[in-house]
């Protein structure tokens, strides 16, 4: 008895229902729209929110790219790609430029996205105020009353304790000057890519049953004080030991032979691309 699944796993009614939540999210940038999140064949917390968005918007001619913490071949990316491919048969790619839909866990690719692309981000904790207030009932009210004193106070307390803001990934942002939004645990390095983005950004939290969005060309501002401006992860003079790129988000690794710390592009497809360019140039020059 082999289960015969519908195109893109969901029945059309379910997809329409999710798309309706997406439309509302686009209409109210940064606002978390509740939706009837389904149980998926992959685990809650493993990208079911992003997956439900991807499955409900994907068409037969779309090309899909999935990344997990920057890597196309990391466990979660492979599993999600496999599932979407098995239920839709759409073309898959590693190359950012070729993709129509990019589902990503916690990175925005290094290559700038275009207006023809949609990036779907997986979100573990959609509520940016959860750290200061545990109750959903209360945080919902705080958003509606534009009461963001708690999150400002959190940053202020960090300055008092550490002499600077000490946020890690998932640094909260103001969207369209109204809602404070969790950008998902992307590094602070990627926050600026959301501002006035050409591509539509959709964010899905399956377990928490929320969908939200940043429409193209929307202002996205990272929360910071005038005298303590927003800062991103610093790699200083470090560069990728494979391709030599410097202005990218780097993974910190240890060289097994020398025991030294080395750095490598976190965006694996970007790194491959750079390596191929070098290779091509070398080949061309050797022919010449």
């Amino acid at each position, binding site marked *: 008895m082999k289960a015969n*699944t519908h195109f893109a*796993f969901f*029945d059309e009614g379910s997809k329409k229902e999710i798309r309706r939540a997406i439309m509302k999210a686009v209409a109210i940038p940064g606002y978390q729209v*509740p*939706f*009837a*999140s389904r*149980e*998926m064949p992959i*685990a*809650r*917390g*493993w990208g079911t929110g992003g997956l439900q968005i991807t499955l409900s918007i994907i068409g037969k001619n779309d090309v899909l790219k999935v990344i*997990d*913490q*920057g*890597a196309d*071949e*990391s*466990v979660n990316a492979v*599993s999600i790609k496999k599932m979407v491919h098995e239920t839709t048969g759409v073309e898959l790619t590693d190359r950012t430029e070729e993709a129509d839909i990019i589902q990503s866990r*916690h*990175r925005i690719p290094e290559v700038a996205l275009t207006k023809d692309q949609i990036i779907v981000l997986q979100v*573990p904790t959609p509520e940016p105020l959860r750290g200061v207030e*545990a*109750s*959903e*009932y209360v945080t919902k009210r705080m958003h509606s009353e534009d009461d963001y004193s708690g999150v400002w106070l959190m940053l202020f307390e960090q300055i008092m304790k*550490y*002499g*600077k803001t*000490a*946020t*890690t*990934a*998932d640094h909260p942002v103001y969207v369209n000057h109204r809602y404070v939004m969790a950008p998902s*645990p*992307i*590094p*602070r390095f990627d926050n*600026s890519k959301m501002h006035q983005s050409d591509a539509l950004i959709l964010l899905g939290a399956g*377990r928490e*049953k929320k969908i939200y969005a940043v429409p193209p060309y929307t202002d996205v501002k990272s929360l910071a004080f005038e005298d303590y401006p*927003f*800062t*991103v*992860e*610093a790699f200083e003079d470090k560069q990728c030991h*494979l391709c030599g790129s410097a202005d990218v*988000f*780097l*993974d*910190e*690794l240890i*060289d*097994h032979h020398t025991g030294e710390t*080395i750095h*490598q592009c*976190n965006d*694996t497809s970007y790194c491959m691309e750079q390596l191929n360019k070098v290779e091509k140039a070398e080949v061309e020059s050797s022919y010449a």
Partner: protein
Amino acid sequence: MGYVPVKGGTQAIEASIKRLKYERLKGQEIIEIKTIMSTMRGMIDQVMSESSLYSPYLAALSIKQAEGSMEEAVFLMRAHRSTLPRPYYSKTVEPETMLVERRVSASFKDIPGGQVLGATYDYTHRLLDLNLIEEKLEENQQWLQNYQEELRDIEDFEEVKYFPKVVDYLREEGLFEEYEVNNTPPIDITKQSLQFPTTRSERLQVLTRGQTGTVTSLGYASLRGYGQVHPTVGEVRVGTVPIYVEHPNKMEHSAEDEFYIGEIKVTEVESFVPINVKNENNEYELEFEIGYGICYGQNETKAIAMSILDQCLEHTDSDFPTHDEEFVLLHIDSVESTGFISHLKLPHYVTFQSKLDSIRQVKKGVQGNES
């Protein structure tokens, strides 16, 4: 190449899935679905209850596929459940129509209809039975035959006997308030996400599909001290109830046109909880309220714990976490809690790198790159 290969993840994952299959097959024994169905009653009941999908056959299949892992079996069933079309809602089940297999009250010795012990582990001594290591089919058959013969001597009732609810008896005595039946259609929590404050129909749905261990633990916490509910079990009943659906096309509905689609086995609990209420003269009076618990199959511990939590969440004006509906309802689901805990095994290279950076910057005591 460096520590993290850019390519190769796909093959590694395929190999891992293969290895998993090997683990299931390597003992070279096959457990049949029918063996699981006829010998793993407790497990099947628990899987059906937590996955909120009533199908002993599919539950047995999920147990087989999951190699007996409860969270995995429940996960498989839930994922399957969300692919099933739901063309009908069943009619309200009246638990008085239950064909009772077991029914006890801890409140009254002499309940109308009597106590029916039925099948339970409650009165057994938990000693490992080493004889089961070499169980013989012939001996079992002999035992069954003897058992049937013993039963023959017991008188038959002419008609099917239904048991009245213990609480009805107390209502007649005036000890419990009479409430009007609330026929508001329930909100389907699988079609609409929870919004707080919740309605009781939503709460009962979340509680009944809660992870057995979690429901039990939270109920226990409330009983032991972190809550204000100290119930007496008015009635625990286990048995089968019939399920009907309305005729889909007829404009006028009558009970005669309804279709019987099968029966389900459930455990139902009504707990009596004394509470203080103010009367008209502003004096405190003791009154009873009912905590309600119900779940698929026979799982009395879960149903009783659910009845405690139901009562807790009816009284949210307490500081105990067991009276906080968000605390209880948002953390009790097996698929959600196991999913989020297990996601910690996914690579967190980026987020960890970001944390490292933050700590280093703080240690350096300088502001990093501005942007």
